[in-house]
């Protein structure tokens, strides 16, 4: 009982956006509310069955434009001007009834975090078929059959029974594919993919990416693919539009954008991650030695870490790489004493560290500092930058008053923030600036080792590059060692001296950067290295054809 849909006349594009302008009312503390322009003068057209990639850094307006195709604005966002013609009508001015029909029937949405976008209280099948059923597009039996078919196309395990599970019962990568099934189930004309693989491990991302690409091809649906990763978007799109600060920078076919970009900004995006770092040789006396570390949490029956033995040399960087759940962060917890190991020792600077944090002398605490992935939750929002950086100076060195303030300013200069930042609050800083303040706070203790836990993962590529360069610079000057935890191979190539590849709680491969990154590889390292998206056409197909194993997340 599928309902006929008014199709636009042959030859006109499915989606035709002209002069789109999007505004929001901004409420900043201490200032009267003001209107800000989020997106200005953006125009593009999308034909049936074509995929347009929207790319840019955070704040570029990608998601906002994507949601505009559903005539939806998050929070106080208004679609202020321009035309959004979809199937021959301007949906910007549509009434509530037409909007309900538009959403879920003509256009559907795949969110970045499927884990958050699925209702935890309802079964996957109910949620996948819901839009199809409320719009009366199919009978319940047809909808379920279609869902199962889509589960199969998306290579989900046990497609017949997959839908009976609850969202918490499946993995992140599977849920992301289920979200794609949810978007495709009502046979929409257009799907908005909003960073659908950003929250996934590279090894999982590649499977989801392939599944999405395959599903787009099989259903012939048109798509807007939003991401900050140019290498990813190059694999699935026909055309790419580069955005910056809500305006279009460049728009063209994929090949032209990645091989012959016209604008400087696009070139910067394409050439990201080209930091040259000369690998340092191991010294005879390592700064830190982990020897046979085995650890588990609370009452668990299995070990999270098994027999981890690695060395870190003064002034050098050891990178711990692996997918989520491989135990990378747990190693950091053992070193800092947050999780006393069941077996094994941590030797640091010639002495053995106590297993538990509470027994450590203050001097040991000072020597090992941490920087976290989420800079904004690692700082007290009600303290100024001066207080945040000044705290370790008071705590470890007893500095107060003018002396402390002078040292704070020195540290701010060191992280390239300069004058005027000391009195700001974290909320007044950008993501990159926040992470810099966290770096300054760690440096304030004058440590020998800084543990960096995914410090660039939440940042835009260009900003992340700035942070990495800063870290390398500081290492040269201060001779501080880094334990760098990351899932991003590109980051590892940029800064590591030695590498430990972790897989299911064990060190899979360990050595200097050159040793680890030189073939022959073991299967897992091969998968990890091959899964890093490369900026060339056909990369996805090549990898899928040649890799030796699949991700553990499947």
């Amino acid at each position, binding site marked *: 009982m599928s309902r006929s849909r008014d199709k636009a006349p042959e030859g006109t594009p499915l989606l035709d956006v002209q002069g789109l302008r999007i505004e929001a009312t901004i409420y900043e503390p201490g200032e009267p509310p003001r209107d800000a322009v989020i997106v200005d003068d953006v125009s593009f057209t999308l034909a049936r069955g074509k995929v347009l990639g929207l790319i840019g850094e955070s704040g570029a307006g990608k998601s906002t434009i994507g949601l505009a195709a559903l005539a939806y604005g998050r929070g106080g966002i208004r679609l202020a001007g321009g035309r959004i013609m979809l199937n021959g009508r301007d949906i910007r001015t549509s009434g509530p009834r037409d909007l309900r029909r538009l959403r879920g029937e003509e256009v559907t949405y795949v969110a970045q975090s499927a884990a958050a976008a699925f209702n935890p209280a309802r079964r996957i099948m109910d*949620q996948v078929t*819901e839009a199809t059923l409320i719009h009366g597009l199919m009978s319940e039996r047809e909808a379920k059959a279609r869902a199962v078919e889509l589960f199969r196309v998306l290579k989900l395990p046990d497609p017949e029974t997959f839908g009976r599970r609850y969202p918490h019962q499946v993995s992140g990568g599977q849920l992301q594919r289920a979200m794609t099934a949810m978007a495709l189930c009502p046979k929409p004309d257009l799907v908005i993919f909003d960073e659908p693989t950003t929250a996934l491990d590279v090894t999982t991302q590649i499977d989801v990416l392939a599944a999405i690409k395959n599903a787009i091809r099989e259903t012939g649906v048109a798509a807007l693919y939003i991401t900050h990763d140019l290498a990813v978007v190059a694999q699935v799109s026909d055309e790419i539009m580069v955005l910056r600060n809500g305006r279009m920078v460049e728009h063209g076919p994929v090949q032209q954008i990645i091989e012959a970009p016209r604008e400087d900004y696009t070139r910067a995006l394409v050439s990201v991650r080209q930091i040259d770092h000369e690998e340092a040789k191991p010294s005879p006396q390592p700064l830190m030695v982990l020897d046979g570390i085995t650890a588990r949490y609370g009452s668990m029956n299995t070990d999270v870490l098994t027999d981890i033995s690695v060395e870190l040399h003064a002034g050098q960087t050891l990178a711990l790489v692996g997918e989520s759940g491989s135990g990378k962060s747990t190693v950091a917890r053992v070193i800092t004493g947050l999780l006393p190991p069941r077996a094994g020792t941590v030797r640091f600077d010639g002495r053995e560290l106590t297993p538990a944090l509470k027994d450590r002398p203050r001097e040991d605490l000072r020597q090992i500092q941490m920087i976290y992935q989420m800079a904004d939750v690692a700082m007290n929002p009600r303290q100024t930058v001066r207080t945040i950086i000044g705290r370790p100076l008071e705590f470890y060195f007893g500095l107060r008053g003018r002396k402390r303030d002078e040292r704070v300013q020195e540290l701010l200069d060191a992280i390239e923030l300069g004058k005027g930042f000391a009195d700001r609050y974290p909320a007044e800083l950008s993501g990159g600036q926040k992470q810099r303040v966290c770096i300054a706070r760690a440096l304030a203790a004058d440590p020998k080792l800084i543990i960096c836990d995914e410090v660039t993962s939440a940042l835009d590529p260009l900003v992340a590059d700035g942070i990495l360069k800063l870290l390398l610079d500081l290492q040269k000057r201060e001779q501080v060692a880094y334990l760098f935890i990351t899932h991003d191979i590109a980051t590892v190539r940029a800064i590591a001296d030695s590498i430990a590849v972790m897989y299911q709680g064990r060190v899979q491969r360990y050595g200097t950067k050159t040793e680890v990154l030189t073939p022959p590889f073991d299967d897992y390292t091969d998968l990890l290295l091959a899964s890093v998206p490369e900026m060339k056409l056909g990369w996805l197909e090549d990898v899928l054809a040649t890799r030796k194993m699949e991700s553990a997340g499947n």
Partner: protein
Amino acid sequence: MHPIAVLLVQRIALSLLLLLAVSVLIFVGTEILPGDVARVILGQGATEQAVENLRREMGLDRPAITRYFEWLFNALQGDFGVALSNRRDIATAIGQRLGNTMFLASVAAAFAVPLAIFLGLLAVRYQNRWPDRLISGITLTAISLPEFLLGYIIMFVFAVQLGWFPSVSSIHGGMSFGQKLYAVALPAMVLTLVVLAHMMRMTRAAILNVMQSAYIETAELKGLRKLTLIFRHAMPNSIAPIINVVMLNLAYLVVGVVVIEVVFVYPGMGQYLVDHVARRDVAVVQACGLIFAAVYIGLNLVADLVSILTNPRLRHPK
């Protein structure tokens, strides 16, 4: 064993333990109150010998521990002893009145709970618009008025002025269900107004809390109607806090209706308790205390169990 069964058994065992502790508290509490029951019964003028005889006759000369276990054991079998003041069997007297109180509470709950949740949903649907403000305003006004005043106002309007319902809610065993409903209409109305605001505000707050979630946006982008969306996607995730407040209010309907029962001269537990407290009848106070505690603990147990059962992560482990 299924992990959820373990959790449920734990909660139930904990509740029983709590009830036992409360029974000790009640017994000890009445034990340390000054005054001797035998002397209270016989009056100031009784001779020492007469008091001593009565104490022995009532078993009050035995150690407190023995008496506690005897009392508890009998209470578990539904025997609360006899009222000291009038020598009538407490269980019989309470049985009738507890039934009346439960009836009134059930009628009030049957209206109040669905109404509160529906109003909560409406308030979310029209958040910060006039229906939301109107609902909040009326329910908050109702909860701000002392309930006896509310009782008299409603009695004046509906019984005296309009004459729709009786002002005295006397019911007895011979009445049909319909007649009983008619008799308790006014006290039930007052109780509904009293408990409505709390439950409605909690429903509104709990659902609004969930409305910020990403999955609500997903549902909105599927083109669901707002009310369908709230009911299907927001409600199931806000049941736990709502059910907690509902249960607290149900408990209040049973144990907190003393004033309303007095206002409407309703033959329930509240009236009975007030009468016997005035006469310092320790045996009745103990019995009522134990029953009220059991109701409170039982309803909170139900809230706990529902919270556990509605959590899909517990119901369907990985």
